[in-house]
């Protein structure tokens, strides 16, 4: 087991596409780190460079303190789980899992022991004699993980391992992966485009966008204290609402003026932070879960009236979609018992303790 370090890592493909534009990342021993971001942002490229499947254009990768830039994949002591599993179709499940050990000349009984142990952890003991063709998607996924586990490598690499599974199985395998990591505690780098997967699995989430890292942090921190508009919009579902607004000083306090002459008082504990920004145009960011039916009881609550356009009852909650001048679709989450109908004006409460103000130009959170 080992830590992984990326230093000023750059990847430029032939034809001049810069897929990774100089990223720095420290991954601690035993840590489960998830690289998340939209399709094409360079996650797979980064992972494949760690694996040694892509050449490194610039920078440095070290695993367990050794720089591995020029070490081929087979000598890096890593194991990888691919999106489409990449099981050897002509080998049985047992042979698929044993292959890496056989090549490394492990003793027969040791191979047997490790494969049986991994099969037990993954609950695939009864499948060991089958060929991959005779397995379901979820079972193939387990075998692919088994192949990684038996090796007991320094690092596990996962590239969107759950994307080919249906929604229900994906949730189940997600739990499974987390359980396996809690058992074997191997340093893990996991790539996904699904922020829910990232939030649920990760010790730390790395949000990537356009070949750079936007923010690194534990899931809760990314959720509560996003550093950029991209992270604020990417983490959380439904996504955060962004409303153009202006900070207006008003007799010692600050107000936020939204379109439609809505005036929200900025909470006192935030005032100092925004004092210097008086009169400035900003983006007001608030998550749907902090925009709810009217409530009382906290100083940070502020009411506003909207006209719902679409109501989506989800069972445990109701999503209300509306918009304001100059915004796209906005969303609020209501208790399902609250009556709401399209076209009927509705009073909402915004919890301003959880608001974010962003610079509309740079996208930085103020």
């Amino acid at each position, binding site marked *: 087991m080992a830590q992984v370090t990326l230093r000023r890592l750059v990847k430029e493909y032939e034809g001049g596409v810069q897929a990774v534009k100089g990223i720095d990342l420290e991954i601690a021993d035993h840590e489960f780190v998830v690289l998340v971001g939209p399709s094409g942002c360079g996650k797979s490229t980064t992972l494949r460079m760690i*694996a040694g499947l892509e050449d490194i254009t610039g920078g440095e990768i070290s695993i367990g303190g050794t720089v591995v830039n020029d070490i081929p994949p*087979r000598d890096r002591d890593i*194991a990888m789980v691919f999106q489409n599993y990449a099981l*050897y179709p*002509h080998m049985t499940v047992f042979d698929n899992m044993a292959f890496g050990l056989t*090549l490394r000349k492990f003793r027969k009984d040791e191979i047997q022991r490790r494969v049986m142990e991994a099969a037990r952890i993954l609950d695939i003991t009864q499948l060991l004699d089958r060929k991959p*063709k005779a397995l379901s998607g979820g079972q193939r996924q387990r075998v692919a993980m088994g*192949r990684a586990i038996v*090796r007991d490598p320094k690092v596990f690499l996962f590239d969107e391992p759950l994307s080919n599974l249906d929604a229900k199985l994906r949730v189940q395998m997600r739990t499974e992966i987390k359980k396996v990591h809690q058992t074997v505690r191997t340093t893990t780098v996991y790539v996904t485009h699904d922020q829910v997967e990232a939030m649920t699995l990760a010790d730390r989430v790395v949000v990537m966008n356009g070949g750079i890292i936007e923010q690194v942090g534990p899931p809760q921190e990314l959720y509560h204290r996003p550093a950029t508009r991209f992270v604020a919009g990417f983490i959380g579902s439904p996504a955060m609402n962004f409303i153009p607004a202006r900070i207006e000083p008003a007799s010692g306090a600050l107000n936020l003026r939204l379109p439609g002459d809505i005036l929200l008082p900025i909470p006192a504990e935030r005032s100092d932070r925004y004092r210097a920004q008086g009169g400035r145009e900003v983006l007001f960011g608030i998550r749907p879960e902090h925009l709810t039916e009217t409530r009382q009881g906290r100083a940070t609550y502020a009411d506003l009236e909207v006209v719902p356009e679409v109501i989506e009852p989800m069972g445990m909650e109701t999503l209300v979609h509306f918009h304001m001048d100059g915004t796209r679709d906005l969303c609020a989450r209501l208790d399902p018992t609250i009556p709401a109908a399209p076209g009927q004006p509705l009073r909402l409460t915004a919890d301003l303790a959880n608001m974010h103000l962003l610079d509309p130009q740079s996208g930085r959170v103020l």
Partner: protein
Amino acid sequence: MASDATIAHAAPVIAPRATPPTTLQKMARRRSTIAFLLTLPLLAVIGGLVAWPAAYAIYLSTLNRRMTAFIGLENYAILLENDTFRMVIWQSCFFAITAVILKALIGFWLAHMLHHIPSKGQRVWRGMLLVPWVIPPALSTLGWWWMFEPSYSSINWLLAIFSVPPVPWLGEMWWARISVIIVNVWYGAPFFMIMYLAALKSVPDQLYEAADIDGATGWQRLRYVTLPMMRNIISITVLFSLIVTFANYDIVRVLTNGGPRDLTHVFASYAFQVGVLSGNIPRGAAVSLFMFPLLAVIAFFVLRGINERTKEIGA
């Protein structure tokens, strides 16, 4: 695969009509009838070009030399007693097996080389390497004959530059046998190359990446990933080539004409020699029919293996 299901559920072929259907229409509506009618041209071709000549050859082989009397299996018995024919059996097997192995190895090697050069240059090389296979073999064999021929042999001339004594390419038994194999390999290897190249391209890159990470060296990737993934295509090409090579006629006929002293004859050329040149058509037919059981046995086992593997890996 899914495509089978689609065919099975295809919509009815003929739309319902208002008038009561005639017997003919009723028959035409039956799917099996239509299927039979549609395959009729093919059946006619197979019947006319395969079944009829084969049956006729079997009939011929049971006649006496002047084709006036039925003599049963006599022709076969005589052939098996005949030293020259025994040599032909041996030489046919030696020729076919050696040539097919060499073609498969060289074809695989060429395919592997091609697979690893960038796709732009690949097309040019592929085209050039296919040339031997495109030229009519009778013509190219004639070219080879010129190169082997003792008085003008360009190969011997080249060898002489390196002070190698002239080689009696077509004049001595083993050299003649080797020459025939060389020409056959030169002609047939491109077919293997093109089949193997297609097979190589169909192996998913991720399997190699998985093998890399599992710790495989280049040789082990070939041994444990490439070859197993190509086993079906290798079996089929080897079987196919074995049949064609066994039945090869033109190369032997043009290059050595069976000589020296009938030592390079294979089934087809010997059948021609016996049946047409020496005028014993029934015995010639018997010679050519000898190949059949041999090939049938090989084909049975190879095809069975392919079937089993296909079921297992779904390739």
